[in-house]
């Protein structure tokens, strides 16, 4: 997902030949493997749609616990995407532009949550920032602030898993950026911050937009880190994915209904992104 953004800064002329080759018929091994890939991703959706309680869909979606979870999910995922942008863009800038010893270690560290099991990430957050945590303990003693079991914990857990997506996407965009415009602006007397604000950020705008939206979608779907770090309480920390998990046990129709909404939302978003940021027609 993140690697595709490299093409966002490609000039118009470079895109056309690629479009022409896309009409070719693929060699059969490519077609076969690509077909397997499509089946692999489409099958779960078919299963979900086949199980969907179409007649009672609205009743399920308007029930109290679903609405509570939806509101919490929307608020916390947007906040997490904002945090991801706020922390991720500067980090990406440093990783792309500044050469320092241990840079690859730092890059591995900040993108670790992408490959780490989310439950492990949540447990690590708990041991660091929980009431008895390395940092959370002194923080709680001094200020009374407690991150787990609160919306702040949900936002932090979401941001933890979503930020790496921003970092990788934006770093890729920054590396592919033609720097002559920045140099020109600097030559004309613009300060470094002004260059960043008026030249660099607008130029990586499309990639940044993709990064933030993808981070938001990731945060919206977050389960493992959230339940491990923030717990699960209806109306306070129970987001939509947590509600799905609990409802699967007792009220499968409601769980499937919520799942359909999450899938439709994410799928619509990704399709919209494709048309908006990677013109293909």
């Amino acid at each position, binding site marked *: 997902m993140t690697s595709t953004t490299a093409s966002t800064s490609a000039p118009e002329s470079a895109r056309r030949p690629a479009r022409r080759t896309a009409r070719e018929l693929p060699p059969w091994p490519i077609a076969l493997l690509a077909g397997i890939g499509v089946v692999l991703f489409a*099958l779960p959706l078919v299963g979900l749609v086949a199980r969907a309680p179409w007649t009672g869909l609205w009743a399920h979606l308007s029930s109290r616990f679903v609405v509570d979870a939806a509101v919490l999910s929307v608020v916390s995922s947007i906040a997490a995407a904002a945090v991801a942008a706020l922390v991720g863009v500067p980090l990406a800038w440093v990783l792309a532009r500044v050469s320092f010893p241990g840079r690859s270690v730092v890059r591995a560290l900040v993108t670790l949550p992408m490959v780490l099991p989310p439950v492990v990430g949540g447990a690590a957050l708990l041991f660091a920032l929980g009431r008895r945590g390395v940092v959370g303990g002194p923080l709680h003693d001094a200020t009374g602030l407690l991150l787990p079991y609160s919306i702040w914990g949900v936002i932090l857990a979401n941001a933890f898993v979503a930020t790496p997506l921003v970092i990788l996407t934006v770093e890729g965009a920054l590396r592919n950026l033609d720097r002559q415009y920045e140099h020109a602006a600097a030559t004309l007397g613009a300060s470094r911050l002004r260059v960043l604000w008026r030249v660099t950020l607008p130029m990586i705008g499309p990639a940044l937009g993709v990064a933030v939206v993808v981070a938001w979608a990731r945060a919206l779907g977050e389960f493992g880190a959230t339940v491990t770090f923030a717990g699960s309480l209806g109306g306070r920390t129970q987001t939509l994915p947590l509600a799905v998990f609990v409802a699967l046990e007792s009220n499968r129709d409601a769980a499937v209904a919520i799942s359909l909404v999450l899938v439709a939302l994410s799928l619509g978003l990704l399709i919209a992104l494709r048309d908006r940021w990677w013109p293909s027609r």
Partner: protein
Amino acid sequence: MGGVCAATHDTDVAHRATWTRRCAALTLLVMTPLAAGCAAAEGDVDGPNRSGASVSGAATLQGSLHVLVAASLLPVAEVLAGDFELLHPGVDVQIAGAGSSTLREQVLAGAPADVFIPADPSHLQAVRHEVGISGESVVVARNSLVLAVPAGNDAGVAALADLTRPELLIGLCAAEVPCGAHARAGLSRAGIEPVPDTDEPNVRALVTKLAAGELDAAVVYASDARTAAGIESLGWGAGSAPETTYEAAMLTEAPNTQAAEAFLDFLGSAAARDAFVSHGFGAP
């Protein structure tokens, strides 16, 4: 595996009508190895000597035995599996543990399993009706719920009534899983309305948070309070504690019926009873 196969065939049928011929051919190509994989998987767990030998003949039992157990049974189930394998060296016992309702859904979806032991017999009902169990289910152990605190009890929790103190961090299991349902029923009988800070999706998750000191008190199984490090039990202390019964049943479609029957017999043995009791469970 069974679930995967079923879903695969469904889509195959659903899509063939609309797909072009080329795609249909492609689908068939894709499906063939999957179907073959399913057949092989079913074959290899089916004991080779189904039509012979007495159930008790240790040397005759072979193949793998898939046992689905409630999350609260996991620690003792590993011990029981090891003991059973010593008695029947030809059998490889595979234990899978999760919330009882999660396991129930897996069974209903066709997960290949021989024995199912949920934390509440109600989960056997759906399985009995939709998938079928072979013979009668047998009670193998009991468990009760206790009020538990992290080692040290820094918050000074003394009784169930402390579960209503808003300044404490209180955890329960979600109402959807047996430990949460029984805890709520028991608390309501005792006239206590808890104010939880989290409703954990299963008892293992709850015990983890409690043991880490991230909760001041929680209602967990006596067996968890007994075996988990860093947890102290305060008992129930308000009349009779809520109890749950573990009933084991062999599924009708058990791939390895001989080993499953032997395992059910073993669960009723004195050795198994000792293992249950030493892990904090009650005898049946």
